[in-house]
């Protein structure tokens, strides 16, 4: 089965058994309906049990599923008349980021997001959703356009990270990301960011300076991949599972740390099981969130975003330190 994950195996096995028995009853006269009912009861319990105790590493696996819905999938369900705009006006069109104008329940908006491919061919074209500087510059161009025409901005975050390549460094990957952080801070329209898959470090943050930041329940947001952290910490990428727990990269962890504003519940097993239903969940939250932000004036929106990030971080004050002098 496509997208079957290790931790889900007991569920799929039981489900298979049930369908086998059902097949069997069709061909014979034996009545097994009470047994089937019992098994289905057990299946439901098992599902509830497994999905309620989902581990960080399992979430990483779900977030990385090739068939996990992408930015364009959600756009088609959430917005009317999406019109994609291409290019950064300077160098190229980076297909690892898509963006354009659309309507959300009639309200004109600008939508931007990282875009993975659905298959190898598309992934090569979209560089596996890992942008080059021109991708971030395209995003910024569209944000400035939204600012000019007073359109709220909705960003979907879904990337392993900014692409680590020679050309990317030559064209200023650092500067492109940094510029977005700075300029997003000054946008005078509501900015809502939603992490829908992997939120990989600076490459994710470059679309992430919003008034509100939400995460899908099984998405991740981190400063370094679990594999990368494990390689540094335990000198072995095989410890990624441990790192996924230690690094606090899941939606519930980040809500607790105050990094995000809310969690969008996923349907049982993950967003890929039913994109339409998942889009409905996102729509609910987008609606209330936009309603709140549209109440604010331009200055209030900028101040709101400033305060949103200004308060992040934990530290203490030590009194007996003498300083460099």
């Amino acid at each position, binding site marked *: 089965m496509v997208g079957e994950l290790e931790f889900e195996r007991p569920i799929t096995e039981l489900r298979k058994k049930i369908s086998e028995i059902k097949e069997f009853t069709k061909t014979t006269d034996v009545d097994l309906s009470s047994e089937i009912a019992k098994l289905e009861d057990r299946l439901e319990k098992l599902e509830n049990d497994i999905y309620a105790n989902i581990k960080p590493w399992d979430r990483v696996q779900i977030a990385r599923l090739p068939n996990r819905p992408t930015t364009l999938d959600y756009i088609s369900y959430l917005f009317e008349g999406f019109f994609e705009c291409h290019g950064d006006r300077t160098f190229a069109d980076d297909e690892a980021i898509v963006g354009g104008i659309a309507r959300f329940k009639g309200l004109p908006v600008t939508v931007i997001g990282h875009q993975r491919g659905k298959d190898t061919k598309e992934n090569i074209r979209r560089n596996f959703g890992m942008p080059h500087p021109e991708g971030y510059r395209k995003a910024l161009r569209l944000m400035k356009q939204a600012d000019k025409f007073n359109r709220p901005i909705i960003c979907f975050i879904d990337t392993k990270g900014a692409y680590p*390549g020679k050309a990317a460094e030559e064209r200023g990957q650092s500067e492109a990301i*940094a510029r977005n952080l700075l300029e997003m801070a*000054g946008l005078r329209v509501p900015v809502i960011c939603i992490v829908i898959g992997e939120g990989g470090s600076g490459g994710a943050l470059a679309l992430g300076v919003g008034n509100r930041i939400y995460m899908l329940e099984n998405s991740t947001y981190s400063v*370094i991949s679990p594999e990368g952290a494990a390689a540094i910490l335990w000198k072995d990428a095989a410890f990624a599972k441990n790192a996924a727990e*230690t690094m606090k990269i899941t939606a519930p962890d980040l809500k607790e740390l105050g990094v995000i504003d809310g969690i969008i519940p996923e349907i049982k097993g993950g967003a890929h099981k039913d994109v339409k239903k998942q889009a409905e969940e996102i729509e609910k939250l987008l609606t209330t969130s936009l309603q709140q932000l549209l109440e604010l004036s331009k200055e209030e929106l900028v101040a709101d975003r400033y305060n949103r990030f200004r308060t992040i971080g934990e530290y203490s004050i030590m009194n007996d330190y003498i300083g460099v002098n």
Partner: protein
Amino acid sequence: MALKDLFTKNHPKKKKYATIPTETAKNDVPEGIMTKCPSCKKIMYTKELTKNLKVCLHCGFHFQMNSRERIDSFIDEGSFEEINENMMSKNPLNFPDYLEKLEKDRLKSNLNEAVVTGIGSVNGNKIVLAIMDASFRMGSMGSVVGEKITLAIEKADELSVPFIIFTASGGARMQEGALSLMQMAKTSVALKRFSEHGGLYISIMTHPTTGGVSASFASLGDFNFAEPGALIAFAGRRVIEQSIREELPEDFQTAEFLLKHGQLDAIISRVDLVEKITNILEIHQPGGELAW
């Protein structure tokens, strides 16, 4: 002692073969009077090197400077007043061994965190200054580094004076997870506000400036400068080599490489730094016959 031990032939300490000095031994001159340049391998008096602001007298190689040396070399004598020096990291993720590592670096570097901030003057021009120090956790940015830099930017805003930073950092601090990542955004929103108020911000990148620091405030100066030979990068060289599977040019991700690719205003030698920065600070003050 047995009689046979008197004969050198049986002496256990005698080396059987001539030893060839290892690569590290060749470069390693005992600390103290003399210092060997890791670039041109020439040996010079440490005193003379220090007097030359830790720039090699022969080839111009820039040795790393810590925050104290930087203050001494850049700020008018006696004008530096440190701020927020008593801020200290916590362990928000309960990361294994993090607090121990911090304590070790505190003792080693005699610093409380990886950045020193304060108010001072350069040839009489008042500024707010932040100096990152690579001797503390590789200059990595966690909550405290982000907060101190943000407070320094806000201080410059409050005093209406320029903000100057010397960056030196391995990037975001892994042990504070997403909180470190968010410091990139925090410092950037503060810089935006400072910029909107017309504040002058000068970023001077020193060796090394990488990852989350290069991808936030380090790249956002009204003027972006670097010291000669400094490594400035977003992604690590090895990561890139693995992802593209080709050899990278030797000067890849150096200050010179960045200048060539349009990412820097200039590379400034430490020897000329005070003079050049003074000039920039003064040009941003109203004056002259045609003042308007």
